[in-house]
């Protein structure tokens, strides 16, 4: 073994970190090589000096100071605390947040679908898709057996409750309204122009301009309109 290799192994030689064979090789070498022997002296000196190093102790007040600091800790830190799931598994944060967003989106979609299905179930059996826009979900205060059609008149919005059952199902003509005022209604709901009888089929019919109209009152097809329907919604 070369002197270079021997010298590189000397520190481990004195620490007992070599194999028996390696140790024997070094033993033989340093007996014969003065240079390596002198080099070895330094390592031996180092090895001998380490146990002689002082051991330093903290001040005598160390433990009482530590005890005081522990006493001053908030009670939550003195007691075992439940670790947050995100603390234990930090990567969960990047799974949980997108999952929460997806769950919220799904909830909103399903909620919307639920309401839609409710609305559809409340529609008259004969209703077409075009009629859907005329229908809104009855509020709790309304009679559940009725649908409501909203009319925009020049005096404001009016909700027209219409019976879901019975024939004719829905008539949209109100007192003092002309057929021409109802042009925006879907054709399927349009009263026949010139028809003498239009049935108000709304139990709680509240006419425009707050005028009372009897339930089941047959209106003339044409009347002088004081209120004009602008829009059906």
């Amino acid at each position, binding site marked *: 073994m070369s002197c270079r290799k021997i010298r590189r192994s000397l520190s481990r030689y004195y620490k007992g970190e070599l194999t028996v064979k390696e140790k024997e090789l070094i033993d033989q070498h340093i007996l014969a090589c003065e240079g390596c*022997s*002198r*080099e070895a002296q330094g390592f*031996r000196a*180092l090895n001998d000096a380490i146990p002689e*190093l002082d051991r330093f*102790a903290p001040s005598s007040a*160390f433990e009482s*100071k530590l005890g005081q600091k522990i006493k001053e800790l908030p009670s939550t830190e003195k007691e075992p605390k439940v670790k947050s799931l995100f603390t234990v598994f930090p990567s969960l944060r990047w799974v949980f947040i997108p999952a929460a967003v997806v769950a919220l989106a799904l909830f909103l979609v399903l909620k919307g679908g639920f309401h839609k299905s409710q609305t559809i179930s409340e529609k008259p059996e004969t209703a077409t898709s075009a009629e859907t826009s005329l229908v809104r979900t009855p509020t709790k205060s309304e009679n559940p057996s009725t649908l409501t059609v909203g009319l925009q008149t020049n005096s404001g919005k009016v909700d027209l409750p219409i019976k879901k059952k019975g024939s004719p199902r829905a008539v949209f003509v109100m007192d003092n309204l002309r057929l021409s005022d109802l042009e925006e209604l879907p054709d399927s709901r349009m009263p026949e122009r010139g028809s003498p009888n239009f049935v108000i089929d709304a139990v709680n019919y509240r006419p425009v301009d707050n005028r009372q109209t009897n339930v089941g009152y047959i209106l003339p097809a044409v009347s002088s309109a004081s209120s004009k329907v602008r829009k059906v919604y």
Partner: protein
Amino acid sequence: MEQSRPEGQTRSSDKELMERFLRGEVEGFNLLVKNYKVRLFSLLYRLVGNKEEAEDILQETFLRVYKQKESYDFNYSFSTWIYTIALNLCRNLYKRKKKVRFLGMDSLVNHPDPNSENHGNRNRLSSILEGAISSLPFKYRTVFLLRDVDQLSYEEVASTLNLPLGTVKSRVNRARRILQKKLRPMMEECYELSKDSPLSIPIL
């Protein structure tokens, strides 16, 4: 991995003490403080070179053990855990003070600490070694103190410092060679004396 500890505390006993502490027995914690305070303080003092700072770091180390006891992983040795805490705190201080001289061990060598256990028995060799250790670069000093003074295994040093095993072995060897060079002149004096002396002074 199991080896004798400087204060006769085996690692399994450390774990038993931690178990007692986790069961609510504060005595377990007190014994851990007793077992580790001198060992850690000596290490920290040699690393930071200032007694007050070393003691502050030691206080913080034990406080963290106290506060974070639930985070101790029983698959690892307690010594690795507490050394890691202490050295992380020490490194943080080192980073803050990097621009000023971090170590003041010269004062330590010239003015021995009154709390030193071997006060009065310091021989010339250990005094030279103390000075030589203080002049080591921080990265070599740390591995040398952990491996050769505190007698942690190479694996424990690697785990404590989060370094590859090969890096630790290489740094320890390098540190020993630096220190050996500092000690060799003194040993050569002895060598020359041994040649002239009628009494053979055993050197090797």
